[in-house]
């Protein structure tokens, strides 16, 4: 088990800078997820840690030892690839044993380790099969086995579940989490899937254009996004975001748009950078769909008149889309109370959960 540290790591391909001054510390046994859309530099960062890409500047340290110039094989890491990368001409057994064989281990030790991992991942019955004879889930298990069998210091995962169907992905996600709880090996996992990130990570690093937008636990990232980008990226359905004006009346702050006026509680002001809460300033106001509710209790305080646009039954919950003045919102509610498109009704918002962002795009 090991720590990993990235210090001012950058990577450029010609004039194109794909990773800029990334600083990260991954503690021993931590499961860190690099999250972001395609092209944000997360896979390149992972490949630099693996040694498959050279850094343009900065240092990568494993256990506080700079490994920039070490070959991948000397870094004692293992990697699981998106397309499994199982050697197609080798059986499952040979695939699992390949890394150990390349390290000139004794045949008896190799057999022992391979069997142990095969038992753990329920691969024992598939040992003589070739990758082409396995299902997607089985292949991914073999890929994980190949990484585990060497008991490396760090596991690197490059979108390992994205080639699987939804059901299998959920299943393997849980297995992966259990395995990590069991092995407690430091892991770095790259994905563009926020659900994977939320469910697996101890901490999430949200990346954009080669830079880190925010680092935090899944709860921190979800409940307290630091930037508009993180707020947009995390959460499904997306956070409701609207441009509004700041209005200071006496000691209270309101956010206004058209005739809509939302009072901002102290708790929100306390966790917001007040430098941009100037009177007349334009900001982005955000509220998650789960923090809006249909006000059927006759509670007039903080209630807004809304017009229903659409209701979508999701199963246990209903996604509603409605308009307040000319602003559209989405909300997840337990019950739509039979309100149909075009009906007028009242909604309430949990003002404590409002987010304010300086940028508006």
């Amino acid at each position, binding site marked *: 088990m090991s720590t990993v540290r990235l210090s001012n790591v950058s990577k450029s391909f010609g004039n194109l800078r794909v990773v800029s001054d990334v600083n990260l510390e991954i503690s021993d046994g931590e499961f860190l997820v690099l999250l972001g859309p395609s092209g944000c530099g997360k896979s390149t960062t992972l*490949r630099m840690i693996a040694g498959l890409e050279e850094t343009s500047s900065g240092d990568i340290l494993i256990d506080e030892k700079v490994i920039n110039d070490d070959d991948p*094989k000397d870094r004692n890491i293992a990697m699981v*690839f998106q397309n499994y990368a199982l*050697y*197609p*001409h080798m059986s499952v057994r040979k695939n699992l044993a*390949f*890394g150990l064989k*390349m390290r000139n281990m004794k045949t008896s030790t190799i057999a022992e380790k391979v069997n142990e991992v095969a038992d753990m991942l329920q691969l024992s019955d598939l040992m003589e099969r070739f990758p082409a004879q396995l299902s997607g889930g089985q292949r991914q298990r073999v890929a994980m086995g190949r990484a585990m069998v060497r008991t490396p210091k760090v596991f690197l995962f490059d979108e390992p579940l994205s080639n699987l169907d939804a059901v299998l992905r959920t299943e393997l996600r849980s297995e992966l989490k259990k395995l990590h709880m069991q092995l407690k090996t430091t892991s770095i996992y790259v994905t563009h899937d926020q659900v994977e990130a939320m469910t697996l990570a101890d901490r999430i690093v949200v990346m954009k254009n080669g830079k880190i937008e925010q680092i935090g636990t899944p709860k921190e990232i979800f409940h307290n996004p630091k930037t508009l980008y993180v707020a947009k990226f995390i959460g499904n359905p997306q956070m409701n975001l609207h441009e509004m004006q700041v209005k200071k009346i006496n000691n209270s702050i309101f956010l206004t748009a058209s005739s809509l006026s939302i009072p901002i509680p102290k708790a929100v002001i306390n966790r917001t950078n007040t430098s941009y809460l100037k009177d007349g300033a334009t900001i982005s106001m955000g509220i998650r769909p789960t923090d809006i509710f249909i006000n059927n209790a006759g509670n007039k305080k903080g209630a807004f008149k809304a017009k229903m646009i659409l209701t979508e039954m999701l199963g246990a919950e209903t996604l509603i889309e409605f308009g307040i003045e000319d602003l559209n919102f989405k909300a997840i509610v337990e019950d739509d109370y039979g309100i149909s498109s075009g009906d007028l009704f009242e909604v309430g918002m949990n003002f404590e959960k409002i987010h304010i962002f300086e940028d508006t795009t």
Partner: protein
Amino acid sequence: MIISFPDKKKRRIYKENFLYIIMMIFGFLMLVPLIWVVLTAFKTEPEIAKLPITWLPESFLNFDNFVQMFAEQPFGRYFFNSITVAVISLISSTAIAVLAGYAFAKIEFKFKEFFFLLILSVFMIPAEVMVLPKYLMMAQIGWVNSYLGLAFPDLFTAFGVYLFRQFMSGIPDTYIDAARIDGASEIKILWHVILPLIKPALAAFIIIKFMFSWNQFLWPLVIGQKQDMFTVTVGLVAFSGQWYNQWNLIAAATVLSIIPMLLIFVLLQKHLVQGLVMSGTKG
């Protein structure tokens, strides 16, 4: 008038059978020269000269031509020379082409495309043009009348580099990345991961290269000036005179000269076919 057509299935069967018949006719037409040579190898000279022509020899047990061929010319030596030259050039050109193909397909280095084009340009120069400069070079090195001299033009082949580069480019980089992380050196990656994946290309290359080397005529004729350095193709010419060709001996020697190539093809056919099947069924 009512015209009745056979149903669709029948029509398809007729169509397929018709195509098979056409293919069989063309296949047979291509085989005619080979069949003719094989049959001639068992005929006596008067039988060959007879008009109207006869297809079948009087006896299939007439091996006189084969005996006479070895008696008139040291064909054992010629075979040995041809095989030695083919093996040397096969090993050398395969090794160089595989290594160069891997480098061009999977390793990043400066001026890669330029060097690749430079190698490809060798393709574009007719071999005959280079015979004289090559001969002068060999004469200076002292390789005239030597196996190295005979094999020299075939030690490297641009075609091989091109073939392996194309095949290896199709292999996903992640196999190589995975092997690098698994602890394999570049040579081990090539040996354990890449080579097994390009078996069909290897088989195709060995067949083509062996055939090319075996059938070389102009270069062995120029460089192997002593009889003990003749190859089979050069030796065959010994049976052709200015006024008279010994067709029976030419045919017998030709039949024997085909055998090594047939053996190579039979041995590697499985991999070749496997490769064709694989490339056809890949998703």
